[in-house]
């Protein structure tokens, strides 16, 4: 029963991966073709051109029909609170910038990305393919989470826009569709990063398991004192760290802007709802409340997924060093093995897997917590501004 469930789940994971690949090709965001003879991917100029043309068209559509997608409630809010309108303009600017930078970086860095993907493919083919990874549950789970999150985000956009504005016409439909496709593109770029990190994570997980098996064998069987696998694992570990650094370098701007825009969306939407309820003294219907709640929770979970992903890889890396400590209490070890272990331990304690963006901040749970706290504070400041505004208008 469990096994049947498991195989079904794995198929779903594969479906997610395939869906990501094909939709990225369709949107022109993955300008590579796979050459099965050399087992490598190659950048294709045609695909880049197609991607640029397609996305420029989409942006033009979205800008043209932007007015049609605005809702009644928002207009009321802006006449009441001019600050909200200014914030809205700024926020829209930020979102546009995010889209531009993301797409531009995606094409600009595609050469480097292609090289990285080729290295990943090579590592997989030569080293990691032969290991059984069916019990690496976190890998499967995180791929599924990301896929589900992307779907939910898209559904939530449809729900919000059609739920708030009852004026259906062709302009609204085209506007919503183009915005949705652009959003899907943004999510696809982040999904690429997500999947790359997941592959790095799985490789580190395999290295950890190999090390653990070695410790167990050495402790149980006292005859065995030698092993030639350590230098190989060490080399793989070193290459993975280097690869991870390059991946983070390619996706620096994209991920940072994505996280920032998710956070600002959350802060601003809570601010809007507070102004709407408290200052305008309008009753919120249950439907509206539900709408607001779903958008907020999906946004927060998407944000947290970005953080948790990095934290997962970082903690897997931390346990590599902890596993190496287990070699301490084996009494008789071969000289060579001992030396290799020491090298590995020193390297792993000095160089860790980090997701450092621009050298400014590392992404892990503690950083995510700090971001959330900062957002709460900003929201409080905004609400205080609104109070001050209210006093001015009343006098």
């Amino acid at each position, binding site marked *: 029963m469990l096994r049947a469930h498991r195989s079904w789940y794995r198929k779903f994971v594969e479906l997610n991966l395939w869906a990501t690949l094909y939709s990225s090709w369709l949107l022109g965001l993955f300008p590579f073709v796979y050459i099965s003879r050399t087992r490598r991917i190659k950048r294709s100029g045609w695909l880049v051109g197609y991607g640029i043309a397609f996305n420029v068209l989409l942006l033009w559509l979205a800008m043209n029909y932007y007015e049609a997608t605005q809702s009644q409630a928002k207009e009321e809010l802006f006449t009441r609170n001019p600050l909200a309108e200014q914030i809205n303009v700024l926020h829209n600017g930020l979102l546009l910038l995010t889209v531009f930078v993301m797409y531009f970086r995606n094409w600009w860095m595609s050469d480097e990305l292609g090289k990285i993907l080729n290295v990943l493919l090579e590592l997989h083919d030569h080293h990691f393919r032969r290991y059984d990874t069916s019990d690496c549950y976190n890998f499967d789970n995180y791929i599924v989470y990301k896929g589900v999150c992307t779907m939910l985000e898209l559904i939530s956009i449809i729900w919000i826009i059609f739920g708030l504005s009852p004026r259906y016409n062709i302009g609204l439909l085209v506007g919503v569709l183009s915005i949705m496709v652009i959003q899907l593109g943004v999510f696809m770029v982040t999904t690429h990063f997500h999947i790359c990190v997941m592959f790095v994570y799985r490789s580190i997980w395999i290295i950890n*398991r190999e090390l653990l098996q070695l410790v167990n064998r050495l402790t149980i069987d*006292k005859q065995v004192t030698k092993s030639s696998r350590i230098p190989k694992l060490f080399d793989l570990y070193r290459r993975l760290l280097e690869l991870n650094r390059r991946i983070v370098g390619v996706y620096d701007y994209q991920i940072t802007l994505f996280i920032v825009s998710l956070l600002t969306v959350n802060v601003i939407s809570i601010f809007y709802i507070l102004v709407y309820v408290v200052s305008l003294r309008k009753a919120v219907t249950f439907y509206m409340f539900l709408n607001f709640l779903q958008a907020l929770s999906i946004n927060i979970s998407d944000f947290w997924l970005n953080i948790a992903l990095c934290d997962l890889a970082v903690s897997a890396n931390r346990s590599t*060093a902890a596993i190496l400590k287990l070699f301490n209490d084996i009494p008789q070890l071969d000289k060579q093995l001992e030396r290799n272990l*020491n090298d590995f331990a020193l390297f792993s304690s000095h160089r860790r897997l980090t997701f450092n963006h621009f050298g400014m901040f590392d992404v892990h749970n503690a950083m995510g*917590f700090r971001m959330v706290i900062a957002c709460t504070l900003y929201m409080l400041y905004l609400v205080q501004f609104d*109070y001050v505004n209210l006093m001015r208008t009343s006098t």
Partner: protein
Amino acid sequence: MSPNTWVIEMNSHKSRLFTHPQAHPRSQLSNDAFARRAVSNDNPVFEDISTILSVLKASGLLPFYEQLSSYEVGPPSKTNEFYSFFVRGVVHALTIFNIYSLITPNSAQLFFSLRETDNVNQWIELLLCIFTYTLTVFVCARNTKSMLEIMNEILKLDKEVLRQFGVVLSNNCNFSVKFLVVIVCCQAYIMVLRIYAVKGAITPTSYILIAFYAFQNGLTATYIVFASALLRIVCIRFHFVNQLLNAFTYVQQQKLAKKSRRQPPVSNMEHFPEDSLFIYRTHNKLLRIYKSINECCSLIIVCFLGYSFYTVTTNWYNLFVQITNNKGIISAHILQWCLAWLCLHTSLLALLSRSCGATTYEANSTSQILARVYGKSKEFQNIIDKFLTKSIKQEVQFTAYGFFAIDNSTLFKIFSAVTTYLVILIQFKQLEDSKLEEQVQNEV
């Protein structure tokens, strides 16, 4: 791959060490404050924290485990498992009833305050309390197995220490009973205050709400005390390992050498290779237990910290409002109420951060002590280096779900955050007041 799955069999090594236990210089160990010589077979395990364990077992947060021997506990029997399941079901049913009566006007009697914002604060506090306790129940139900594993690991370690050194490690957790008394007193007092504050006849729904609220608060607090007690137990084991290692340091060796100057010289260092293996192994095991405890409790601790942060802030705020509004005259009722809450939460926060801090300190000081060990030959130096190279930059931390490390500095951080939020709340209040004044002036 969680660290709980690290299985390392060490049988061969144990038996080798056990062959010459008499030849060991162990006199210095019996001086250890935490160690006492006692051989007893049928003592219940974790005797020091048995009260708190039985409270948690009765409320379904911990399983009614079977004691297989004095160094092993087994999974609960079917009836006991069903009992825990049943209690959890009742608790969830009560929670749903509570939320329902909070939404409907049944509970209007309990929100008696004049100011709108105070009622909102109370509401949020109630919801946070309900959320924290429900989460505690869920997490405990999910972690039943790993909790038993942690207990068994600790007991196994104790057994090995007894076999090696003939020392029974005491747990020194008497504070748990004191804290239990404090919690019960505070909650009972708050309950009485609450009942007295309600005007008119009290409906049965209100009684249920008040009682269940106190019950939830008390049990969450008890769980925190239990987590602290577990950490203390681990701390004592770490301390024992450090003591063992300390006997080999240069200073201790010098002292011993001075004492035995008249007698023929006895070198204690000859047992260092064997003992070091035991020490390294125990240290690794303790680190694993420490990490498992962190994984089991971290979600509950995060939630509790959030809840008690909110409670402490609102109570300080209430005190402040009382002082400024009534021009210095404080209502005795609110004063008692706030002080009871502050006392309870502050003491719990202090306990938690202290025990986390102490354990982390002990765990991290092992490598410092090892660095002082006198390695007179190449072989000893190698043994020492082996541990030290693998401990570089590997400070352990007790984290609240990776959000922040919990140690002695946490208390300070929480109180500085409370101050910041207090200032923001007071600013809000002043804005609200000035708005009200203007409205009144306009009407006049």
